[in-house]
Each structure stands twice: as C-alpha cells, then as structure tokens.
C-alpha cells in the first residue's frame, strides 16, 4: 500500500484546547491517578515464592514455541520472515527441501538465542503460517549460554508442553489454522 492510497485516512493532531492550555485540570487529573494507586491493592508479588498472574496467556510474550500441524510435523515453512523481522537477530534458520509433498521447504535447524531475544513478538507477527508463537512461560533460566540457545526440538517441546493451556491462534484471531 502506497502513502497516496485513497483508502488511507490521514489525521492531523488535535490542537490544544483551553483545558490543556490552562494546565491545572491536567495536573489535577494526574494527581488523581497517583492518589488512586496509593489506596488501591498492591500488584507486586514476592516472586519466585509467589507466581505472578498472567492476564491473557494468549497475548503474553514469553518463551517461544514452534507449533506442530495436525500430523505432528513442524508447521514452519522456513521462509525466514521471523529472522528478517527480528530486531535482535536472535533467530537462525537452516532451510532445506521438505520430505513432504505438500510443502516446499522446512527448517532443518531452527535456533533462537533466548538470551539475545528482547521478546518483542515481531517473529510471531511476521510468521505467515503461525508457526512461531510466544507462550506465557516467563521464568527462563539456564546454567550456560549454550543451554539458552533453543533448537527446533526444544521449541517443539515447548509447544507440546503448552498446547493445551494455550491453543494455537484461531482463525477468529487472524490465524491460518
């Protein structure tokens, strides 16, 4: 889509009104927010004894997983779009010809350096087949750097672990499933 496309509506920033220019109403509204947080219940938890509550696990951006299709094969088609979108350059894919007739290529190796990842979710956004997704697993620890480079098997096992609690993105949510 080009910037000149007629279906794009370009909006101008609204000019400041009288209330904004007087400063006082906004000052009061800001202080009200502060005061409300002073009296509302605390949201901090004593992690790791206490587990934080994840609001909606379907949109949380935690550890990655590689989804499987109905036949249990890796869903990824090795298009490299996640690696292209990744601002941290933490995804490394080696593509090869797929052994299945319905798919042209698939990832021979798929590695994510979880230490390098900034959990922005761009990979999930870029994926045309919804193969890579971020789960709600948030405590990511390891004893070495090597251990934190997740390979294809590990990412698939994350899927096996989380598939029941967090089903794949449905078509209603814009998925291709």
């Amino acid at each position, binding site marked *: 889509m080009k910037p000149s496309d007629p279906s794009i509506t370009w909006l101008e920033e609204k000019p400041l009104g009288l209330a904004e220019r007087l400063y006082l109403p906004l000052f009061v509204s800001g202080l009200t927010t502060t005061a409300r947080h002073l009296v509302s219940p605390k949201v901090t938890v004593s992690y790791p004894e206490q587990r934080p509550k994840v609001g909606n696990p379907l949109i949380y951006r935690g550890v990655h997983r590689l989804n499987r299709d109905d036949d249990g094969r890796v869903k990824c088609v090795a298009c*490299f779009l996640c690696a292209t979108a990744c601002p941290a350059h933490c995804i490394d894919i080696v*593509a090869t*010809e797929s052994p299945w007739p319905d798919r*042209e290529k698939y990832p021979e190796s798929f590695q994510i350096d979880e230490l390098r990842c900034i959990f922005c979710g761009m990979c999930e956004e870029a994926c045309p087949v919804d193969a890579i997704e971020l789960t709600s697993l948030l405590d990511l620890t390891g004893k070495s750097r090597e251990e934190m480079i997740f390979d294809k098997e590990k990412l698939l096992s994350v899927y096996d672990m989380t598939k029941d609690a967090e089903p794949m993105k449905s078509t209603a949510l814009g998925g291709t499933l």
Partner: protein
Amino acid sequence: MPVVIVDGTEIEIGADERLNCIEAARRAGKEIPHYCWHPGLSVVASCRMCLIETGQRDAATGKVTMVPKLVPGCQTPVKDGTVIVTESPLVTESRARVEEALLIDHPIDCPICDKAGECLLQDYHFEHGQPERRADLHAFSSRKRDVGPTVTLFVDRCIMCTRCVRFTREISGTSELMVTSRGAKEEIDVFPGHPLANKLSGNVVDLCPVGALGDKDFLYQQRVWFLKREANVCGGCSAGCSIFTEHNQDAVYRLKPRENPHVNKWWICDDGRYGWHHLHDASRILEASRRSPSPARRGNGAATPAVETVEWAEVVTKLRDDLKAAGRLAVAVSPMLTVEEAWMLCAVARSIDPQAFLAMGFVPTSGADESFPGGFTIRGEKCPNRRGVEEVLAVYGAGGRSWTDLVAHVSAGSADAAWITAGYPGPWIDTAAADAFAGLGHLVVQDLFDSPLMRLASWRLPATGFAERNGTWVNVAHRAQSFRQAIRPPAGVWPEGRLFWNMLGRRGLYDPVAVRHQIAGSSAALAALAGDMPPTGVDLRIHQLA
C-alpha cells in the same frame, strides 16, 4: 541528432542508434515495466507489460499525432519526433490489468519463494498493480519440475515470458527448453531426454523475472535480502567475466553476472557461476608455517622435521632473511595474482636478490575455447590474469619467461631458493613435476590447498581466492578490470597483496589503487591503468588503438 519526446521531455539520441521505446525512455529517466523483453534476446512482445502510448511530431508544423491504441514499447522503435507517453491514465490502467491477469494464475507463495525480494512480479505489482485481488486464492504451493542438473522449474509461478526459451535458442544454441500446450495451459518444459544441461544453463535463472526457475545450488540457502553484493571479476578462466559476488557474513552464496558490454554482456558460464565453492573448502591452508631446513626432509620414512607456525608479522622479516641467506632466488608469479600483487611480488623478489629469476607461474588449461552462438566464449586458459602478469614481468625485464623456463632454470641448479605463488582452485601439479624443486635450500609455496609441491616446501603460505582479493586482472582481450574484495579471507590469512605490501616495507594498509597508479606510471604498456577505473574496465591497448 534525432529527438525523442518522453513524457514531454525532449532527449537526443545518436543518429545511428537503434533504440526501442523502453531504452529511449530509460535515457529520460523513465522506467517502462517489462517482463519478456531483454536487451540480449529477440523481441516477442508477449507480456504486454510495456504497453505505452506513442505518437509522431510533425517536423514542419510541430503538431503531434498520437497512435489511437497502446503499443508495446519493446517492439516500437523510436525515430526523430517520436512521442512516448508512459504515465497516462490509459497506460496505468493497462498495467494494472496486466498485473491482475498474471496474478490470477500465480501461487502467491512469496514467503517460500526464493525469488521474493528480487522478483519483478512483486516489484511491478507494488508499483503498478491494484491493492486487492478480485480472483479466488489458489493453492499455496507450486508444482516442481526438474529440468536439468542445475535448474528446477516451479511450473505454476511462471508468467510465460519465454526469456529462458529464447536464451537456449539464441545464446546457448542448445534449444532444450520449449513451451508446451497452448493458451492458459502453456508451460515451460524440456524435450524428453534432453535436460537443460548446457554450460550456460544458470543464466536462465537470472533471466527469469519471477521465481519459476530456481538455481539448485542456491535454492533455499538464503533469502536474497540478506545478501550483500560486491562488483567482482570471475577468476575461472581468462575471459574475466564481470560478476557480482553475493555474500553474507563472509560466506559467498552465489555469483551473478554483471552487465559488461566489452566482456560478457549479460551472461556467465556455469563453471564460473558455481566455481566459488573452493573458497569455503575445509581443507584450505590457513596458517603460515615454516620448517627448519634439514637435509633429511625427503626420503623413506625419515622423521618429519619440526614445523612451526609463524605469525604473519614475523613472516615479513623471517621469510626475507631466509631467502636472502639462501642465495639465488627464482620466483613464479602466478597468473591468479592481480597486476598489483604481481608487481609487488617482483619488487620484493628483486629487493631480496637483485638478480632474481622471475617467470610466469603455472598456467592451467583445460581444452580449447568453447564458443556459443550468442557470442559468449568460455576460455580454455583457466586463469584470469596471464596478460597482466606478462606485462608486469616485461617491466622487470623478464617478459616471455614461462613456467617451463622456471622449471628448467631450477632443474639446472641455477637457483638456491624458489618462491612459487599458486592459488589455483584445484590440483595442478603432480609429484613428478614437483620433484624438480626438491633440492632447493628454501622453497616457498603459496597456495590454497595442499599439493605435492606444498609437501616439499620449507615455507608454506596460504593464498586467497578471487573474492578475497583487491586489485586488477587483465583478461584475454587485454581488458583490465579492477575489483575490491567481497569477503574477508578465513581468519588470520593475509591476502597476497597485504603480505607483499608489508614485505616492501610500505606503511599503513595495503592500498591497491595507489599501487595501480604507480604501475601505470612505470610502464607504457600499463599506462591505461592510471586514473579511476570504470566498472566495465579499460582496454590496455587504448593508447595504441588511437
């Protein structure tokens, strides 16, 4: 001079130039989109993407008469007074309709298509297509067909521009590819039992404007947007084709032809195209090493003398000292070296031994020159710079001395030490030939791979491949082309140029351009190397031709 009017801008063309509307518009800075037309192939005007409005301006009255319907720009020659309109609503609408028609039958599998990122269908659709698709989506994959040892055809991605078919008929002259069926069922295929197996087959992949023809060597290896390209020169034979080396993170992924009307036009051969794999061969020599001179270094089962790895900074001094101590020096200047490297090597040799015997290195050959109907020739001389090294040797008074002369010189016992530069991508010397160098006090061998000669050497130095060099090569037709390195050599390896530069005691980083200018000043035959080098190179005989 004839004047052509492109979108209201008047441009002059040469009186005897024969241009079509696409070429004329390009001179005016207007790009007319096209799929089937290629400057190196015949015109078929079948894709209809280049439809434009044309007319004729009356020279006497200045009145413009337009042709009532759109005409294909590729098939319409321009003459004095031709009016070309590339931006009118009619043209824009026509392009959008052509794009739509092409996409109805196209599997939109861009994410898994290797062409994505350099695909004309993508580019033109973005530029000229409409944002929405009115037809139903087809399947997400494309049928695959093996058409030859180097090329895979993805049948459904094809837009039937027939560039590949015309290439095999007009340029390679082998006619393997054809169109089967008619109308909407048209497909590219090979004749039964005749796979696409000519030596120029890889070019059809470059010609394909979409992802229908895939290069098996590059298929699925890398997305094209990760690749960086450096203008380079192929080192496969003495034709010296202009190429782009496409690489990422110091790894070459593919070579592409670079348009050069004086050398290779738009093509390269498969030997050159796939001739980069030796650069990443695990058996390459990566360390400079020296073994203490010992008389028992050959013979039956004698204990191998100690081999020590030498730091590059120490090579500069130790190698000079060793050769100086040895005495009479003979040097083979490899035709794989650039002109700059050859010139510096000769200077280094003469600074060590003022009487050093300089000669051409081994010149690998493989059969006779092979010509194709389209004018492309694969040379039998499998080294890129014999002409350049010959000129450099002439500067040092060693013109005409060949490898055979050097072997005879060494066999006659006229040398105490030899420095053999090589850098050949494959095996080049056998044990019998290497034996001529057995009795020397010092033998320096600079090569990419181990060889019988390397096993005799007291100094083993790694060489670099074509994409790792800086400098100038002179091809068989005396055309000099300068290029810069595309990738860094494997960790730690000094390219020849850097070693010679440091051995000459010059300060700072190796500057091939400065050396080139110095060479141009020192020799009349190489004077054309002065000044900035155009991307298509210069003819060394330019002063003689004038």
